[in-house]
Structure formats: C-alpha cells, structure tokens
C-alpha cells in the first residue's frame, strides 16, 4: 500500500493511539491528507490536536498505530524529513537577548540555509521590526516570528498549530493570503484551530476531533449542508407543535406563545418540503430561514455524546 497510491498522500495516520500514563490523548485517529490541499483540523483545547501534530514532527512517539509524513515514518525520516516541513507550534515560546532577525537567521541555518532570501519580504508583510530583542516582543509579535519561520523556506508541507492566535484581524488576513500563496505554489497545509471560522475560509476539507478521535471529516461545502438552517415561523393563534416535532430533519424545536400568536423556531437539516407542508394549513404571519454557521455544527459535536455521534451516519458522512 505504498508507491503509486500514496504519491498523492502527504499525511497519513492509521489508528493512531497516544497514552500519557492513564490518560488517552488519541484514541485510534485516522487521517489522510492529500498533496496540495489546505486541511483544517478542528477541536477545542485538549481534544488531541497538538498531540497529533507533535507526533507528525517526531516530538512524540505513538503508543499504537502508524503515522506517515511525506511517505516516511516521522522518527525514521529524521532531519531530512523535517527539512521539508514548516512548523508553527501551538504554544510558541522564545526568549533571550537575541533579536528576532538573529533568531530567524539561526533557524535558517538549522534548515541548511533555506529561507534567508525570503526573510525581509515576510518581515515587511507582517510589519515585524526584526531588530528588536525577542524578550521585548509582545505575544502578537512572537506569533509573527513563528509564522515567518514556518513559511520562509517554502516547505512542501506546512503544519500550523493554532496559527492565527495572537494575530490581529489585519494580520490574520495577511496570514490567509500567505496560505493561499503557498497552496498555489503546490504546498500542502495542515492547520489546526479551535475556531472553525478561522479555517473554513481557506480549507477545502475539515476534520473535527473530539476526545482523540475524528468525529466528522468532510469538505467544507458538505459540512455546511450538514449544518442545516435556522428556521422560524410565526403563526396566528394556537398551533400544535407536536406535528412539527415529529418531522424528520427538524431538531431543537422551540415554541413561544404570545399575543395570540405561536412562534416556532427549529434547526432544519435536509429538505424543507415536509416542514413547509406542515406549516401550510396554518396562517403564517412571519417566517425566516438562514444557513447556520459551521461554527454551530462544530458546537453540535461537543454537545452530543461521542457514542451517539459515531452511530449517526448522516452526520459523520463518508469522509472516513
């Protein structure tokens, strides 16, 4: 199962398990990321994002399962493999009297000289004063240094853990431009976040991780469909909510009775036909329907117990 079929696979994880003592951080994680895609990796803190990422960079060794990056097991790939990766840690720590220019030049040396030519351009784009000592830099400025060092040597794989944390909105946009440029140049981007809106703009596919497992993996369009719509009807008089509650695809139905009207709000997944037909016999005074944010879908996953989710084929889709 190597060679031709794998030529297009940049990251592959199969049944990845990682235990810290008695705590299971990863519980059989499967993931396949193809060359050239921008892939969003979503989950709150503690869900296993950073553990997965640090396995890919050979900082951690899996308890069970297998990870492959650019066709190599991380530990076997060693420095030559890491030379092809740009990595931005989730918790970026740096200190010392050296200036960020000196630190970046050091990191260039650690990449065999790759990236030096691109430093001035990137520093200018992010408005980083590279002559200042690292210890005097704000969190946002340190994050700029982190982003620059990840991109400077034009790696074929970018692994970015919470890349936009600490960047103001303007720089977040600059960062997203950088991601698109890298992708246009053929690079693969694997980026994690705990906020979906950050990645849905650039990512084609998104995986949602919960308690060390992928609970949803799909392209952003499909996820958006799964997210459904917020629908609201205001009817004249009293309306039997039970009819609506029984409809397939209608969830979270809420009823509000006031001033001789009945207002129903719900989340609608799938086609609206049944809902509209159920509404038709009544006199509708107002109505609205708008797409839910993907963010809401993300939150759904953290509201429903994991066991239920795994059973729910409609939501988990065909991504894995």
């Amino acid at each position, binding site marked *: 199962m190597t060679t031709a079929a794998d030529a297009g696979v940049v990251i592959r994880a199969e049944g990845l398990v990682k235990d*810290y003592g008695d705590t299971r951080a990863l519980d059989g994680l499967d993931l396949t990321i193809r060359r050239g895609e921008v892939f969003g990796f979503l989950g709150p803190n503690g869900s296993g994002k950073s553990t997965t990422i*640090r396995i890919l*960079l050979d*900082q*951690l*060794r899996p308890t069970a399962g297998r990870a492959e990056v650019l066709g190599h097991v991380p530990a076997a790939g*060693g*420095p*030559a493999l*890491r*030379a*092809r*990766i740009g*990595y931005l*840690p989730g*918790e*970026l*720590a*740096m*200190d*010392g*009297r*050296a200036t960020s220019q*000196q630190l970046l030049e*050091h*990191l260039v*040396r*650690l*990449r*065999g*000289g*790759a990236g030096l*030519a691109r430093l001035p351009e990137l520093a200018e784009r992010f408005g980083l004063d590279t002559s200042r000592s690292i210890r005097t830099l704000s969190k946002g400025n340190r994050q700029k240094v*982190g982003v620059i*060092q990840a991109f400077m*040597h*034009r*790696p*074929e794989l970018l692994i970015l853990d919470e890349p936009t944390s600490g960047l103001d909105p303007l720089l977040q946009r600059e960062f997203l431009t950088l991601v698109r440029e*890298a992708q246009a*140049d*053929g*690079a693969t981007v694997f980026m994690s976040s705990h906020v979906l809106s950050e990645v849905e703009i650039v990512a084609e596919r998104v995986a949602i991780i919960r308690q060390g497992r992928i609970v949803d993996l799909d392209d952003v369009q499909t996820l958006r469909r799964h997210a459904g719509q917020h629908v609201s009807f205001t009817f004249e008089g009293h309306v039997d909510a039970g009819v609506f509650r029984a409809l397939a695809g209608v969830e979270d139905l809420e009823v509000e009775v006031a001033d001789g009207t009945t207002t129903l709000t719900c989340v609608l997944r799938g086609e609206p036909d049944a809902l509209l037909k159920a509404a038709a016999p009544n006199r509708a005074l107002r109505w609205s329907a708008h797409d839910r944010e993907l963010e809401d879908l993300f939150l759904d996953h953290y509201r429903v117990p994991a066991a239920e989710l795994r059973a729910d084929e409609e939501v988990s889709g065909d991504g894995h």
Partner: protein
Amino acid sequence: MATDTDRQQPETGPAHVAPAPGVAPPGSVLRWALREQRRSLLLWSLAVAVVSGIYASFFDVMDPSEMDALIGSMPEGLVAALGYDQLGSAAGFLESTVYGLLGPILLLVFGITFAARTLAGGEEDGSLELELTSAVSRRRVVLERYAVLVVQLVVVVAALSIVVVALVVAIDMDVALSGLFAGGLGLFLLVLALSSLTFAAGAATGRRVIGLVVGAGVAVVGYVANALAPLLDDGRWLEAISPFAWYLDGDPLVEGIDVVGFGALALVAVVSLGVAVTTFDRRDLGV
C-alpha cells in the same frame, strides 16, 4: 528559488521547494547556544577570576606563625575536615581555598545550572521546540549543547588558572606550574562530571529541577563524605565514593595528575553523556 520554469512541473513536486532541502550543518546548534551564553560566560569568568585572585593573594599577607597558632587552637578533626592541615604551604593553601572550596562552589553553581537549563529547561519551557523540530537530529542537539557546557567550563577554569599562575609568579609562591595544571584539570573534571550528571538527569526526564537536584545532591553529599572521611575510623569508603576525593585526595597541586581519581571523574562524564544521548533520543519530548 521558484522560477517560472519550475512552476510548470507540478507532477514532480511543489515548484516553490528548494532543489535540495537543507539540513543543519554541524555546529549550528553549538554556535547559537554559545552565543546565548556569551554574556553569562563573560561575567562568570570575571567573577571566578576575581574571587580566586583575592583568595590566592591572601597567602602573601598571611603570617605563617599566626596561622599555625590558629590551626593549633582548632580541634584536630575540624582541621582535617577543612583540609587546613596543609594551610602553611603554598600548595596546601591553594588546594584548600581556591581549588578545594571557592573554585568548586562557583564553578558547580555555574555548570550545574547551565547543564539543567540548556536541554531540560529549554524543553520544559518550550524554547527548544523550534530547534528540535528543525532539520537537526535530537542526537546533534544533545551533543552540541553538551559541547557548549564543555567549552564554557574550559573558559572559566582557564580564567581561574591564569589568575592563579600570575599570582604564584608575582608573589613567588612555592607551587610548580605542573601542579597548577593538574589542579585546574582536576577542577575541570570534577565540575564536568557533576554537570554531566545534571545534564543526563535532565535529558532523561525533561525536568530541569530533577537535573538540578541530582547534580547538586551528588555535589553536596560528595563534599560532605570527603570532609567526614578523615574524622571516622572507618572512613575510607566515604572517600572511595566521593567525586571530591577523586579530585583532591591525590594532592594534585603537589603530586600532579591522579590518573585513577581523574579517570573516574572523566568516566562519570562520558557515561552521563551516553545516557543523555540515548534517553533523549528515545522518549517523548515536551510532555
């Protein structure tokens, strides 16, 4: 590096990738870690040189008869424990002050704190993460950061030795230069051995504090064991296990290099380095 012709071959790999992805040339970690230590190394060298100079020059103003009277008034055991029985001679004086007490204390504080910080400390606070995820092997990070420890100890011991040699010549103390060389070498090996233990404990566990406790603990126990040994009837075994005894019991300033004692110190350093390299290579980092 990405030219337009490169861009037309997406099949063979991303166009923007440099032709041969570079790995870190040897010495890149050493160079950076040493650079980060510049200021600290300079200050410690100066401090050690000044303190050694002050103490060594006391020998000139000391009145031997008063000294003998003072020592005669002290309990015999205490004199032996402090190593003051030799205080009257220049070599004995230097061995019990600069080489036996102040030099080791200052150098051990410097060496042990650095050894705990450079690997375990950096791993713990995350400041090593960019280095460890770059195109450099863990083994190289360990070896080059250890080399920075060695280089620094050589520099500080050299600073101490230069001042002592200058004073020995200036105030005409009766100590052979070969004895001073042996003393300096022994001091270097003592501090290297205990710093290496610290380094290895930190490398194996990823905890700076564990490194500090191991290094400082062995230093204190070793010092006490060596001081107590002459006071006990059955104290020989205490000397056998004390790194301080391996360093000083052969009277290096008088007798020269003690091959067995110095060899034992060097062995501790080498084994510790081996442990550091293998354990750091095998475990999870930054957990």
